[in-house]
């Protein structure tokens, strides 16, 4: 059995959305500046909000561009607007509005962008490119929590931080509960879920669940592989990435999104500039997603994209082989 970090206690699958909802409600009771901005896509715990703070809900309708700029103005006047929608809509649809009216002036607007790369809803809603186009935007902090505990803590941190933040909420598949309640979360700080000397999987979001499953398979083959959980995708924790390179000399990144512009590219740049190591990027190749039913027994899209624990095992071995080849050449 693998030895995990101090704040790891692997449990049952729980939706991260629950953590987000809990943190939002708790913060709203203490901080009257927090305003949900609705784009006709609901809001975490909407009934609770309607009952307790109906006057604080700003419904802008299916008009994300106006919604983004109205939120900017509300932030300019001291409020903390939280825009909840699909990531393709609240940032993607309003990309220029987010850039011009929010990020240029670093207004304190929070985005919760729904959907990872797969789910029943299909190609339109499965936003594989959301992290990519968000990472190039200056002044925007991006977080992609891995489980329900981290989702709660990241939401808390997002609301305390002064400045624009995107919190990606992957709705399906459901990740395992991984962290303990006293897990110390900090924006921009990665967490060592497990240390390992043969290779390191740097995982974000749902892929942490698959990485944990992969560790057991790898251990059975005698490989000691570490996991670094990277919740904050911008700014990346470069120190931890370099540490991973030092410790294991082989890096596999795992993300539930396009490998272009995402975690993999960020890690590759950090490695190349600091301590180069062979790496493999696991994620969605340059293609769009599609519909696919997800049940505990069956997940066609996970197989289609090659994002199962078994696929991670193959990538980790490939990466270790690259490392060995490089060492032989020396």
């Amino acid at each position: 059995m693998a030895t995990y970090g101090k704040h790891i206690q692997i449990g049952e699958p729980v939706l991260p959305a629950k953590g987000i909802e809990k943190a939002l409600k708790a913060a709203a009771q203490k901080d009257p500046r927090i305003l949900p901005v609705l784009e006709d896509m609901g809001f975490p715990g909407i009934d609770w909000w309607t009952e307790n703070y109906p006057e604080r809900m700003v419904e802008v309708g299916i008009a994300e561009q106006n919604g983004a700029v109205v939120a900017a103005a509300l932030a300019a006047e001291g409020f903390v607007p939280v825009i909840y929608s699909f990531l393709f809509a609240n940032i993607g649809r309003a990309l220029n509005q987010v850039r011009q009216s929010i990020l240029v002036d670093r207004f304190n607007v929070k985005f919760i962008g729904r959907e990872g790369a797969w789910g029943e809803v299909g190609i339109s809603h499965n936003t594989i490119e959301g992290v990519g186009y968000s990472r190039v935007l200056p002044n925007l902090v991006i977080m992609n929590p891995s489980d329900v505990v981290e989702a709660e803590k990241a939401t808390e941190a997002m609301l305390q931080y002064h400045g624009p933040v995107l919190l990606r909420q992957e709705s399906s598949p459901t990740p395992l509960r991984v962290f303990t309640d006293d897990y110390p979360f900090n924006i921009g700080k990665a967490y060592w879920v497990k240390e390992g000397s043969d290779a390191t999987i740097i995982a974000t979001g749902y892929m942490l669940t698959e990485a944990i499953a992969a560790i057991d398979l790898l251990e059975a083959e005698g490989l000691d592989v570490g996991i670094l959980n990277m919740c904050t995708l911008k700014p990346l924790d470069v120190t931890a990435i370099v540490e991973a390179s030092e410790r294991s000399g082989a890096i596999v990144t795992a993300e539930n999104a396009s490998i272009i512009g995402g975690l993999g590219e960020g890690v590759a740049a950090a490695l190349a500039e600091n301590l180069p190591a062979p790496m493999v990027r696991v994620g969605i190749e340059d293609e769009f997603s599609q519909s696919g039913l997800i049940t505990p027994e069956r997940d066609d899209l996970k197989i289609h994209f090659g994002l199962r624990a078994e696929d991670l095992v193959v990538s980790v071995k490939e990466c270790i082989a690259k490392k060995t080849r490089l060492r032989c050449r020396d």
Partner: protein
Amino acid sequence: MAHNDALVAELEAKSNKLRSHCFTQFCTFEQGHAGGTMSVVDVVTALYLHHIKFDPKDPDWPERDRVVMSKAHCCEAIYAALVELGVYPEETLGTYYCYGSPFQGHADRWSTAGIDYSGGSLGQGLSFAAGMAYAEKLKMILKPPSAEETFLPRYIKRFDPAYRSYCILGDGELHEGQVWEAAMFANKFKLDNLIAIVDYNKWSLDGPTNDVMPIEPLMDKWKAFGWWVTEIDGHDMGQILDALDLSNRMYGDNRPKCIIAHTVKGYGVSHWETRRMHLGRGEEMMKGVREGREKYGDVR
């Protein structure tokens, strides 16, 4: 309700002075958005030098009226007003377009004191102005003034918001769908403290605005969106002041206000007027500047 002639004459003189300040800015790199700036100068003069609540010594005063220059490429007119108000010294005009200058190429909130909105990407300003107008309403809902506070001067008048939100729109900008999203939003939340002013100079970059993409019937459009609308000659100081006053007095009617100001692109400089100059460069620009300087006098 007509304003007295002395005030109108004074503001007309100020407006000419603002034009002259604009010429100084155009000279820095022999470049600038001459057409739209000249067409909006009279409205900007009326707003900044007379109508709005604004303290030049404290440009961030929380109770100042907000002014969103949605057609942010014509920020030269606002810079001229800020210089005239003494927020910036006259020398700053010569740094227009320069690296590190508070007078950036497009209106920028953090570079310039007295600018409320960083624009440049058209069509977004009305949403921002509406958001600020809504914030004023929301503050009153979430934290109603105490009995003691209601004795403060600003609450003595029954209908007086802490601040009003003004938005200056270009006519070409009305092609953007987001303007109409914002128009719906303002109507929904009954933003009677929001006043939009359309600088209707009839020309956008590619040609006549109504050929590029017809925006008429403009009055009916705003009316259909639930706004109170009026049309004025945007170069007649008396009419501008009257329209602004009227829109203030109607506060409490639950309707956002729109003033359609009919203007002339490049107004006051025949060289630019005939060419419907949008972005002037080089000799085209300087010919107009020379003509304008002769007409309005060199303030330096």
